[in-house]
């Protein structure tokens, strides 16, 4: 199970996702609704707050993100994650 990491979204039941999939795809598979638009890192619609853990990007995304934010459409998890959706 080395390819999988644990993801906690707010107070929902934690689940496991693949490190090689974009996080947004995995979240959608688990019925976590995230706003999205371009799905390629330039619009910023899918940003969420990263409370714990680290992610990586294949290429640096164009959209503006604050230090504690990640773009789910194009990031991949490196470690276990704790995230919070906006609103």
């Amino acid at each position, binding site marked *: 199970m080395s390819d999988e990491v644990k993801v906690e979204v707010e107070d929902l039941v934690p689940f496991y996702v693949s490190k090689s999939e974009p996080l947004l795809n995995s979240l959608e598979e688990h019925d976590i609704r995230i706003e999205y*638009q371009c799905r390629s890192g330039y*619009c910023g*619609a899918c940003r969420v707050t990263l409370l714990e853990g680290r992610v990586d990007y294949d290429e640096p995304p164009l959209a503006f993100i604050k230090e504690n934010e990640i773009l789910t459409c194009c990031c991949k998890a490196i470690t276990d994650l704790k995230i919070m959706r906006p609103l």
Partner: protein
Amino acid sequence: MQYTIFNRKPVNSLKEPMFFGETVNVARYDQQKYPIFESLIEKQLSFFWRPEEVDLSKDRKDFQDLAEHEQHIFLSNLKYQTLLDSIQGRSPNIALLPVCSLPELETWIETWAFSETIHSRSYTHIIRNIKSDPSDVFDDIVRNEEILKRADSVSKYYDAFIEYMNLYTMFGLGTHEINGKPIDVTLFELKKRLYLCLVSVNVLEAIRFYVSFACSFAFAERALMEGNAKVIKLIARDEALHLTGTQHMLNIMASGQDDEEMARVAEECKQEAEEIFIEAAEQEKQWAEYLFKDGSMIGLNKDILCQYVEYITNIRMQAVGLNSPFDVKSNPLPWMNAWLVSDNVQVAPQESEISSYLVGQVDSEVSADDFDDFDL
């Protein structure tokens, strides 16, 4: 300062702020203070498209078959978008270039404005296709009360900044007597007007376009006006990028990393910025009411559209560090996102049904029996 088109002073643009530093002299991109603007330019160039690529022949028939109140919805949105892109095709250049201090930012502004002119051209392409006399539509833009109300709030922050910026580029800072009246030109006021202008541009790109986008995609969900929806998809893709550009500028300003005084301006203008967003959201809701005054369309009505406006206003405000004012927690039009995904915007002509590209194509498939009826 007196404006010069080519600043003769040797300038290290890596040490200049985004705006109100030394004006740009050499357009060089080998070194950048903010590489993000260079990346935005690259992305925008890769998005290049031409309205004529999109085949609208079926739309003409679709439009004629629409009920009258649906034609009203379609045309009104087109008029509103024409207004917005008329403004955006020229104003970033006029307002921002004279006070811009970074070559990569200067070129981003020009690239951004240029892509808006493609949008304007695409409206002509669409209107020409559905109306025998396009003037009916275009002329109404400066007569229609509802559109004019919006023109006013979209352009007022630009005008306020441009007026003041002209005094600055002509006379420099200080008190000047103009038409017999003393006028104070201060850097703080300039920055304030610029910041509010950018907020209002952000609102334009982030919220004002989306009511119209929603209607276009709602038609296309019913397999109507699909050529138009294809054009709108391309426009929405560009607008999402422009929105990111403006969010970067606003956030760099607010962070103070670029110019400390700008951060104070952003802090001081916070409430006014929030009001600009909220006012625009209210106007868009009124616009939804105007669109549906004679009847709704399948899949969309005034209430859902208003909730959608509130929802995206919340998201956009959060993105630039403002408080989200509305109590909508989820997207009332989830199917919109599927239309806004850029993955399935087809860009390679050989892979898409772009008719202008396919016309005149040679059928290159040859089978063994193709020469059977040849006699030598």
